[in-house]
């Protein structure tokens, strides 16, 4: 399925499927996802655990852990090249070079045996032909850019001497060291305190503005989406169910799932006398929902037609996999939830 086509997308994903198991009996965790990422914009990919969002992110750089694999028929096109068909050597050049990726656990993402500066410098030297001295200087420079005070000393320090937030900054510095066109961030703030989280989010916004880097930000936290998203994409049970500009998706979501997610986030105006709305049930496995709309069982608005998988349909500037997408997009957010 395809979402809105862009004229010059930064990254173009078509029919991406990721699965486990033998060919005859494949278990898909990502099912036929099509998505375009705009250059210089932050796209938030939202979903609960089990939705396949992390697998999608890992598949861009072909980092899916064995025994999973990208299934045939998938295409991920970046600057005219299909990444799924690239040679291992070519892929290594892309990884950390044009496309960088950062992960959720800053406490363990850095190698405890090497200093911070060494690890950043390694990134530089893997993709540029520079001397050790130059790479080190660049590392110090980057630490300063990501807002680490006393970068000279911190470069010589080891990861265990830094707090979680600072380690994530180091990771971001490492990711930026090659001026990538695209930064894939898999829940980079989930493991951090709220205040630190805000700082990291600010940093990412700065990066987008200063370097025009496109960012694919994976998260399950709708609140974060509200803070930084330019574009929104929502995944459910391995499928893409909604894409669109953030202001549209967040105010008039064209899919009941996002609508329900937004409702479950308490705000200052929420009615405190009523119980917090929750979505009953849990995310099904992608393979369990063949044939019908995956959200059907938990949706307050489901009806007969939902026994058929809805394709992505335009609804204003959004694209939604729901039979009532258009009417959803027209009403204000928060319309009716059991």
């Amino acid at each position, binding site marked *: 399925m395809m979402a809105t086509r862009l004229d010059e997308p930064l990254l173009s994903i078509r029919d991406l499927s990721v699965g486990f198991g033998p060919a005859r009996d494949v278990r898909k965790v990502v099912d036929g996802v099509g998505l375009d990422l705009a250059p210089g914009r932050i796209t938030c990919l939202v979903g609960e655990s089990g939705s396949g969002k992390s697998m999608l992110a890992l598949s861009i750089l072909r980092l899916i852990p064995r025994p999973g694999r990208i299934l045939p028929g998938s295409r991920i096109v970046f600057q005219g090249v299909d990444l799924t068909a690239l040679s291992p050597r070519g892929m290594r050049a892309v990884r950390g070079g044009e496309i960088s990726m950062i992960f959720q656990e800053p406490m363990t*993402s850095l190698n405890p045996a090497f200093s911070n500066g060494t690890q950043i410098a390694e990134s530089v030297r893997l993709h540029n032909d520079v001397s050790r001295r130059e790479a080190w200087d660049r590392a110090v420079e980057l630490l300063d850019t990501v807002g680490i005070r006393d970068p000279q000393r911190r470069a010589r320090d080891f990861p265990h001497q830094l707090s979680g937030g600072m380690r994530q900054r180091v990771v971001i510095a490492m990711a930026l060291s090659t001026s990538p066109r695209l930064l894939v961030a898999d829940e980079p703030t989930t493991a951090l305190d709220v205040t630190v989280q805000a700082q990291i989010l600010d940093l990412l916004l700065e990066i987008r503005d200063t370097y025009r880097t496109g960012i694919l930000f994976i998260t399950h936290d709708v609140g974060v989406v509200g803070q930084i998203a330019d574009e929104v994409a929502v995944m459910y049970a391995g499928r893409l169910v909604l894409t669109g500009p953030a202001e549209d998706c967040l105010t008039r979501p064209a899919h009941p799932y996002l609508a329900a997610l937004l409702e479950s986030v308490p705000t200052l105006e929420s009615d405190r006398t009523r119980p917090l709305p929750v979505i009953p049930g849990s995310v099904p496995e992608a393979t369990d929902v063949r044939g019908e709309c995956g959200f059907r069982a938990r949706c307050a608005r489901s009806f007969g037609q939902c026994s058929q998988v809805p394709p992505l349909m335009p609804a204003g500037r959004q694209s939604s996999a729901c039979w009532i997408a258009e009417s959803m997009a027209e009403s204000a957010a928060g319309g009716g939830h059991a």
Partner: protein
Amino acid sequence: MRRFLLQRLALAVPTALGAVTFCFFLVRLLPGDPARVIAGPQATPAQIAHLREQIGLNGSWLQQYVSYLNRLVHGNLGYSALTGQSVLSEIAAHAPYTIELAVCAIVLSTVFGVLLGTIAASRRETFIDTLIGGLSVAGVSVPVFWTGLILVSIFAVQLRMLPAAGAGSWDSIILPAITLSLFPLAFISRQTRSAMVGALSEDYSRTAQAKGSGWPRLVFRHALRNAAIPIVTVTGLELGQLLGGAILTETVFAWPGIGQLLVQSISSRDFVVVQGIILVFALSLIVVNLATDIAYVLLEPRLRHGR
């Protein structure tokens, strides 16, 4: 870091003292009068009395113990009943051979053990992994002296390529070194595999891959550097087994090291020498364990900054 090392040193001292005390009691385990046993059936009462004095069997237990410690501090381990030489000089004469053998075995076993273990870890669950695993478990199950004999049988007897015994020619060390290295090689291979599998599944390995590291860099720089810590720690502790293996290997190949000296001394009931060698072995092991602790501290950056 300093604190850790001082702690280890503080632990080593009572252990060393305990080992020394144990050796003190060894001679006194001999049935009957130790001096008579050591002097042998031909000895005259005068010789026995002289030996008594020499070994320090006169006086109360406490007096004996104190004089024993005193002699040790001055490097006096007693005298051989067979040759009359001081035990220390006997050991010093034979030691270089054992050290040479041990060093060769350690180098061989470490290099190939780490290599095999790394290959097994990076080819997890494949045929290669199973093969290396099988060879490793076989390697720790085979008696070291049988390995030696088989190697002698093949290379010295059948093929006549290498000498069967002694330290005569330059190639005499080949078979003994290989023999002695087999058990630690298999052991290190297993430890390495397990440590490397652990390191490769850590998040920092994923980060290294995401940075664009190729396989060799990932394995040999990122993973191995961290896996080295548990490998070195466990291996250091097993080094003591190498001494046991050395005794047997030297016997198979008539290699003139301390091991052979030990066996000969036991056979000829030269117990003062035996006691001295046992003590030297134990103290060496304590030193080796301390060295392992130092290596551990050097390798683990988290210990260096005291967090």
